[in-house]
């Protein structure tokens, strides 16, 4: 059992290296030029963007599924991205441009994500089944969407365009200067999750049971909400809302590893999430001469049927 997990970890790591190389290669072919400047200013940030967003989103999905004790939870379906999105809209449209910097951008997204996650968690205690929770998540998303539309009607066309592009989700927005920031935040999120492994493992049995096993459940829940907001919020800030990665990859991880050991699940989700988004971006690059697809279209084409399959299987 353990051996199989380690084999899977090593093969996904090698697949990730291969995909990353393919990503750099395809992008270089497309650029046609072979200069150091393009490599560091354009190719590397885009690859890092896919790597980090994939890793962070699937990890935050894994954490949310543990917290909500439901495999259908995820940062996108529960409206965490919407919370981040709303706060970013408020920032872009409502605040003087002088305050628009790295720090305000990311902290607005994280605050929105944290509030949305906390709100959904409180709601989840009051509804009995996941279907209702998903519908509430959907309502929450359309509600924040409506507020954004209202805000946009007051905005200048340039700001609206900026928001529209951001909302499509993209792996090309991150600049070389932003890359180290995002890398630090995501790596910090992954590293801090490793300290939660023992509690996460026990939480699989439910809150009361975890408490009985000596887990500081309250602290664990707040840590999960905080790390989820950190990851989903910062990624949403840099790449826009990217759907389905957070929901699909942790489920795939559990199905493949057949374990609830969260050390293995964390490592595999991180690798598999990165593989998934890098592969999708390679596909986008390959298709680029004929049609340019936003990243969300492809994650949805692959992710949505898988999630539907999971729901059908749950019954």
């Amino acid at each position, binding site marked *: 059992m353990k051996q199989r997990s380690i084999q899977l970890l090593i093969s996904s790591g090698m697949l990730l290296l291969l995909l990353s190389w393919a990503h750099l290669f395809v992008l270089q072919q497309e650029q046609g030029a072979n200069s150091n400047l393009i490599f560091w200013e354009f190719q590397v940030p885009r690859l890092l963007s896919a790597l980090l967003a994939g890793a962070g989103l699937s990890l935050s999905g894994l954490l949310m599924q543990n917290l909500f004790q439901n495999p259908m939870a995820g940062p996108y379906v529960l409206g965490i991205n919407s919370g981040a999105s709303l706060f970013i809209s408020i920032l872009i449209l409502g605040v003087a441009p002088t305050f628009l910097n790295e720090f305000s951008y990311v902290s607005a997204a994280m605050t929105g994500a944290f509030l949305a996650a906390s709100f959904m968690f409180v709601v989840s205690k009051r509804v009995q089944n996941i279907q209702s929770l998903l519908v509430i998540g959907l309502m929450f998303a359309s509600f924040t969407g409506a507020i954004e539309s209202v805000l946009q009607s007051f905005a200048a066309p340039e700001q609206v365009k900026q928001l529209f592009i951001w909302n499509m989700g993209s792996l090309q927005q991150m600049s070389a200067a932003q890359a180290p920031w995002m890398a630090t935040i995501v790596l910090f999120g992954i590293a801090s999750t490793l300290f939660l492994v023992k509690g996460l493992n026990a939480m699989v049995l439910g809150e009361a049971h975890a408490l*009985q096993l000596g887990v500081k459940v309250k602290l664990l829940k707040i840590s999960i909400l905080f790390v989820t907001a950190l990851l989903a919020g910062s990624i949403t800030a840099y790449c826009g809302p990217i759907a389905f990665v957070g929901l699909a990859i942790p489920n795939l991880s559990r199905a493949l590893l057949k*374990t609830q050991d969260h050390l293995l699940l964390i490592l595999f989700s991180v690798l598999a999430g990165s593989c998934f988004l890098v592969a999708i971006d390679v596909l986008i690059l390959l298709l680029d001469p004929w049609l340019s697809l936003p990243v969300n279209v492809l994650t949805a084409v692959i992710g949505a049927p898988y999630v539907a399959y999971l729901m059908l299987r749950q019954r």
Partner: protein
Amino acid sequence: MISIQHAQVGYQTTLIDIAQLALPAGQIYALIGRNGSGKSTLLQTLIGQLPLRAGSISLGAFSLGELQKNAALRSTQVSYVASMFAGVEALTLHAYVSLGRVPHLGAFGRMQATDLQFVDEVLRVLNLSDLAHKETRKLSDGERQLASLARAIVQDTPFMVLDEPASFLDYFNRELLLDQLQQWVQQKPERTAVFSSHDIDLCLQKGIPMLVLHQHKLTLLTKPTKQEVMALL
């Protein structure tokens, strides 16, 4: 040793009122009572999940109040077997039982060789070794119930509280469960176990002391006879 002083047990109203009672260590106690008499409520109180309305209860050196405040301490003192464990996707029986070791593991939750040995030994004694790698959701109700007992045993606490731990077990496994519990309390001097049961005949046959819940009172019968028990119920 469990000692109870003027304890009032219940949620909004007092369901059970116990003036004074001491349960010496080295024994298992069967908690007997009619449906709705408050067996589960009393057990929830004993594990520190439900605060006392008044009075005090102590498990060995610690009062329930102390244990309630400190989940880490509590997890080394008292283990709990719930009446039903539904199973979890992708969680194998071995992994489930191993979670009983959580209170004894380091920060990263890694099992050491001695932990794994302990788990394997308990699985063997309860005839669960062949099911070790089966997913808990695919086990039968009875198999999951035995697994819960295994999980509590590997938690290695002085006190064990069990809520109808034999309700899904067949005749042979009921005997196995009681024999294992009796062995368990005798392995270390401070050990005490309380379990609720409707299987009065088997408990009488095994000579297990009984705690009978009736009319909001708790009576200890150290050498119960059927007439005594029936008269109280």
